[in-house]
């Protein structure tokens, strides 16, 4: 089977969609430049034309709104925000318009727009080039939120997002781009039926994450295995609407729960996972209090020295697990 990395898996999703669906177009800033979006969109405009891969004025708000409007008119647009931080200019189009359109108009029109938003941090970029705001979007009914963590999901969940009739926030993380894996042929998944999946089977503790946090969990699980601790890792994949059944099943077995999240701790998605699981567990099911590893409640620092502590490493997770279940 072909080995691919996460970044080029995204590229192959764009290829697949633009090739097979004439109503798909892509719009966003930096799409004709090689460095805004890494290796995920290389030469698409040369292959499919600048009318279908549209680089835009510096106008996140209008471009996102335009994509929402185009989706109401029968197109399947993908808006690309090379950094989530800048996408905040487009909050009205995302939260007030796209997410509520179907509901407030009686389910008669659906903005099937995909908003691809990239978490792009580290490298001393600081507070405004770093944010992972998936928890905000997962709070909004009507907006599907997708965070692929594996190479295959990077491609297949993007395809599923674009083919879905609802607005979708697809969030990828540049720290995942170099991850390599076998890539089977593309498939068209029904996004509405996708659920969290068990990526590693284990018996001592359940570790849950999404996006890059999920990769960290897998890396920590490998280290813990060497220390005789068997970890079950669950990759959330779809944050909204969020279905916790798979996680609950796992926690009933392992009786320990740790959540990893690349957003801030307070009010973060880690809290939603723990709440939804604990609400449905029998009393005294857990051997230890549920725990989480997420970012400190502070904006990202710039200095390399501070950054090292600020972001989560697999070692942080290993340490947390050992402290938790020892």
């Amino acid at each position, binding site marked *: 089977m072909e080995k691919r990395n996460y970044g080029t898996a995204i590229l192959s999703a764009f290829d697949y969609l633009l090739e097979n669906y004439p109503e798909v*177009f892509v719009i966003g800033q930096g799409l004709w430049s090689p460095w805004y979006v890494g290796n995920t969109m290389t030469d698409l405009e040369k292959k499919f034309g600048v009318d279908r891969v549209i680089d835009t004025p510096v106008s996140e708000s209008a471009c996102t709104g335009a994509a929402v*409007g185009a*989706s109401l008119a029968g197109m399947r647009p993908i808006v690309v925000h090379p950094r989530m931080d800048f996408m905040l200019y487009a909050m009205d*189009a995302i939260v007030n318009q796209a997410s509520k359109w179907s509901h407030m*108009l*009686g389910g*008669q029109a659906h903005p099937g727009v995909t908003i691809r938003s990239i978490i792009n941090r580290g490298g001393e970029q600081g507070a405004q080039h770093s944010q992972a705001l998936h928890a905000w979007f997962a709070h909004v009914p009507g907006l599907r939120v997708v965070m692929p963590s594996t190479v295959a999901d990077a491609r297949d969940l993007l395809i599923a997002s674009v083919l879905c009739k609802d607005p979708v926030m697809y969030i990828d993380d540049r720290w995942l781009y170099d991850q390599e894996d076998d890539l089977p042929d593309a498939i068209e998944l029904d996004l509405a039926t996708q659920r969290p999946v068990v990526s590693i089977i284990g018996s001592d503790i359940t570790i849950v994450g999404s996006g890059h946090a999920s990769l960290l969990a897998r890396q920590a699980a490998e280290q813990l295995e060497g220390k005789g601790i068997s970890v079950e890792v669950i990759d959330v994949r779809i944050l909204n609407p969020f279905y916790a059944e798979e996680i609950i099943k796992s926690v009933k077995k392992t009786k320990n729960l740790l959540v990893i999240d690349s957003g801030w701790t307070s009010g973060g998605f880690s809290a939603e996972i723990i709440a939804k699981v604990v609400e449905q567990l029998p009393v005294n099911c857990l051997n230890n209090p549920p725990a989480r590893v997420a970012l400190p409640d502070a904006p990202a620092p710039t200095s390399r020295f501070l950054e090292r502590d600020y972001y989560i490493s697999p070692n942080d997770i290993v340490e947390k697990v050992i402290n938790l279940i020892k």
Partner: protein
Amino acid sequence: MKNDLNKLSNPEEFQSPIDIEGFDVEVLMRMLESMVLIRKTEQRLALERMNGLIGGPVHLGAGQEAIAVGISQHLQSTDRVFGAHRSHSHLLALNPDFYRLFAEVLGKSTGFSKGMGGSMHLVDQASGFYGSVPIVAGTVALAVGAAMAAKMQKTNDIGVAYIGDGAVEEGVVHESFNLAKIQNAPMLFVIENNLFASHMHISLRQPSPMISRFAEANGIPFELVDGNDVVAVFDAAKRAICDIRSGKGPRLLELVSYRFYGHVDWRDDVDVGVERSLDDIENWKARDPILRLSKSMLDCGFLSECQESAFDQKLDKDIDKAWNRAMNDPYPSDEATLKYVYSEEN
């Protein structure tokens, strides 16, 4: 003739009957009937809101009917029209079904938005009305995107955004002007300049009352028109829409008008005290677009008083019937709140 905004915004000007010489009588009649239908529908809404039968806010546009009516004569059902909080006229000018508007405002499942939207969230895509929402300027970029889609789909459809003079103070409107121009999108920006944003007169909000200056800044051809002269609106819209459909890119129309009611609900005086005086309201009522057209038509013998009152009486009766029917219609079912969140649940 080039219009002057200071003159257009002076309520003591432009009160005479409008010039209808050589104009198609059938079209005049159609526009008059459409305007009267919208006016009477809104008057009923004002009355029932005052009576307490309507639970939510209604933003009435009485006095501004000529704008939507003049423009809609040139629209086709495959165009993509977007409105805002004050959009009853925008919808009714495309689809005169006041029964479904009443049902919607009453939150009934037979309404335009199946009772999920009320007065501020309306849709009727079959007639080209893609939607209206109350976030000021929220749909302007959506309309540009729908226009861009029309171009990609190689149709001759256009996008239309109704925008108030207050909405142009939102940044996204300027982004949208620029994007529409740079994309050469088939897009009509309709500026309804009624001189007020809620309670604030334009002189307290902007250094110039003329919104068209932003069209100029973005290289978008525009016309400044008396928004209370339905024939002038019709003619300007015809020129603009013809250009847009033939691929010449976006156009902007600025139509100066005035609303008879306050910002929201039935009172006409809630805005008085800033710059709006009762004298102004009275003067603007003398510039009533319906009055001016019907007077011109009566003067020319295109319409008789007898005809006019027969039409009014029949409409009053139909409105009564529609209101009572809507009152007896069912509310959405219990499941509706969760049912419409995602498409799969339908």
